[in-house]
């Protein structure tokens, strides 16, 4: 009896502790974004007033309207979606195959390929810019979607492969070996057995890949030239002028850019909830 109440009390204490911790963390994570949201409704002058206020009398949706009614800026959003979605799907497809090879096979050159994949990420993009740009022009990919998509894939693949290899490594090999022993090919073992179990990992890699493609600025700017090819981060930087910034529009455009990503995350986050993966892993 006493141990039961003690355990209940402990449970309650732990719950309070977790909630307090979560609230503190949420303030750390969310306050800057709250301030961004608040600034997007202010006038440029009010953003800098002291003492600062969360809501001001000039509260207005003006910044949002001026972005949403500008067809050029709406086009930036469309471009960002096209590129980010294509990059995510292609990266996942290519990375899952490579990760499967790394996780389930021993082959000559495995180590050296691994070292290359890990370390190519280490070259500062700013120094790659000029030779890379020359290459893209020669390949005829300048100012095209494929140019941007392939570029981002090069940046997202190493991460995706490393993480997917890690996830596959945590899955017991008996699972896919058994399928292959039954006579099915490696492709079946991979796509019919491993991939469905690895969904949480795939989703988290996918979200990450999407973020990279969505937020990249330097190459998006260099590899495109016309307004119908440019992406949201460039649109945001265009608001940072030579003499002054459109502060409220910068904030509004960032918020607008983040909402669809947030919805995507909300939709996929059920894959992070307990039970889904762990149940099937039990063998």
């Amino acid at each position, binding site marked *: 009896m006493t141990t039961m109440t003690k355990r209940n009390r402990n449970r309650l204490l732990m719950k309070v502790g977790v909630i307090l911790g979560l609230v503190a963390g949420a303030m750390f994570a969310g306050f800057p974004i709250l301030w961004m949201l608040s600034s997007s409704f202010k006038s*440029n002058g009010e953003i*800098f007033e002291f003492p600062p206020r969360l809501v001001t009398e000039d509260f207005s949706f003006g910044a949002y309207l001026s972005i949403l009614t500008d067809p050029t800026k709406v086009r930036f959003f469309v471009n960002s979606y096209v590129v980010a979605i294509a990059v995510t799907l292609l990266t996942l497809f290519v990375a899952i195959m490579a990760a499967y090879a790394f996780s389930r096979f021993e082959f000559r050159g495995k180590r050296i390929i691994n070292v290359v994949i890990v370390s190519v990420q280490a070259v500062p993009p700013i120094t790659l810019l000029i030779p890379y*740009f*020359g290459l893209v022009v*020669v390949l005829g990919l300048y100012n095209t979607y494929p140019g941007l998509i392939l570029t981002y894939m090069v940046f997202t693949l190493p991460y995706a492969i490393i993480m997917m290899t890690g996830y596959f490594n945590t899955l017991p090999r008996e699972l896919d070996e058994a399928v292959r022993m039954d006579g099915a090919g490696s492709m079946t073992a991979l796509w019919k057995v491993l991939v469905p179990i690895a969904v949480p990992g795939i989703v988290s890699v996918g979200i990450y890949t999407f973020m990279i493609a969505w937020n990249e600025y330097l190459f998006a*700017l*260099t590899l495109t030239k016309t307004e119908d090819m440019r992406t949201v981060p460039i649109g945001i930087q265009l608001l*940072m002028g030579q003499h002054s910034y459109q502060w409220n529009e910068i904030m509004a455009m960032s918020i607008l850019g983040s909402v669809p990503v947030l919805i995507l995350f909300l939709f996929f986050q059920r894959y992070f909830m307990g039970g889904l993966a762990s149940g099937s892993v039990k063998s």
Partner: protein
Amino acid sequence: MSKDARARRGTFRLLGVLATAATLAATAGCAASGSSESSDGTVTLEFAQWWEPELPEGALRGMMDDFEAQNPGIKVNLLSGPYASTKEQLFAGAAAGTMSDVVGLDGAWVSDFAKQGALADLSALMADAGFDDSELASQIQVDGSTYMIPAVNFVYPLFTNDDLLSKAGISAPPTNRTEFAAAAKAVSALGDNTSGWILPLSQEAPNGIQNDVMSWTWASGGSMLKDGQPDLTNDDVKSAVEFVQGMWNDGSIAPGSFTMKEQDKVEEFSNGRVGMMIDSLAHINLLRENDPNLKFSISAIPAEDGFTGERGIPYASWGIGVSDSSAHPAEAFKLVQYLMSEKVNSELSTVANAFPGNTKSVPDFSNSDPLFQTAFDIYKAGYPANEFTGLPVAEDLMRSFDGQFQSLLNGDQSVDETLENAQKEWESQF
């Protein structure tokens, strides 16, 4: 064939692809640049600049439409990018041979692009076109040839907040350094987070060195160069640096200097936290917009006590140049000529809130703020001064001076050490 052999052959094939790609990339420099010619002989020029987003919507496009109407057979494609990245983009474009035919330039970049061979010699193009350059207010030359023509100039006079100054007991904008320092001190003494002066010294965009530090030297007729070589240890530079250091030590400068940028000045000023700033005229409209009740004046940058000569006023330009790799340099120059023509240049300077690069052009102030007329009078009374324009690695010169200057204000070194160190760093770049 064994699997191993097949794999090896695959590797060889891959190496072959690699080698081909590398060769192709190496020859990228020879690729043709921006412009294109369609089958009916219409030439489409690319005009890369950061101006379009800075101007009222459609203003620049409208001018291009007029140009196309006047020049059948030439079309203009406006390519706009963010100002902060323009330089890298031009540099990368020049290296890959994709630079646009006509490009917007800043005076601080010209020398480097010219040396890279990215810009066409405008002196030659002007001669070919039989263009009379007597109307041009200035031309930016490197080794005797023109590479950039300033289309419009933004001058940087002194802005003073009338209310704050009168609250501090000062009735008129200061005209010399002593008055300025006293006014700055008095405004800072008002408390309530107010400061006398604002000094942006961010190393990301170190043009504060040009507009807010060296401008004190130029306003008193001084120079930081001697025969085109750095001369930072002269008395004019030294007294300006000592003057700024004095205000820093008085606590008259708004906090946050070391990471502040030009764009931050106007926000602090319009919120009434700063009494005085040296700032671009382009900001007048923004100040009005931010706070319609703000009362402020414009005056010349104060000079050394007792100085009676002509005062230099710092300025920044929107310059134009032509790409060296342009396939249609003659057409490209027509666009330059058009933008520099009396009427179009007046129009451009009016919409940009700037002063024209054509001496005959007169901006139309009838619809704009009366302060523009005041500023135009100040501009006419002095001379435009920006010694960084056309210098090699101009931005890096500002940046290295900035680093030394921050060390000085931080109390790490003396004025003499600062100037000697900066002089040494500059000499190694010339």
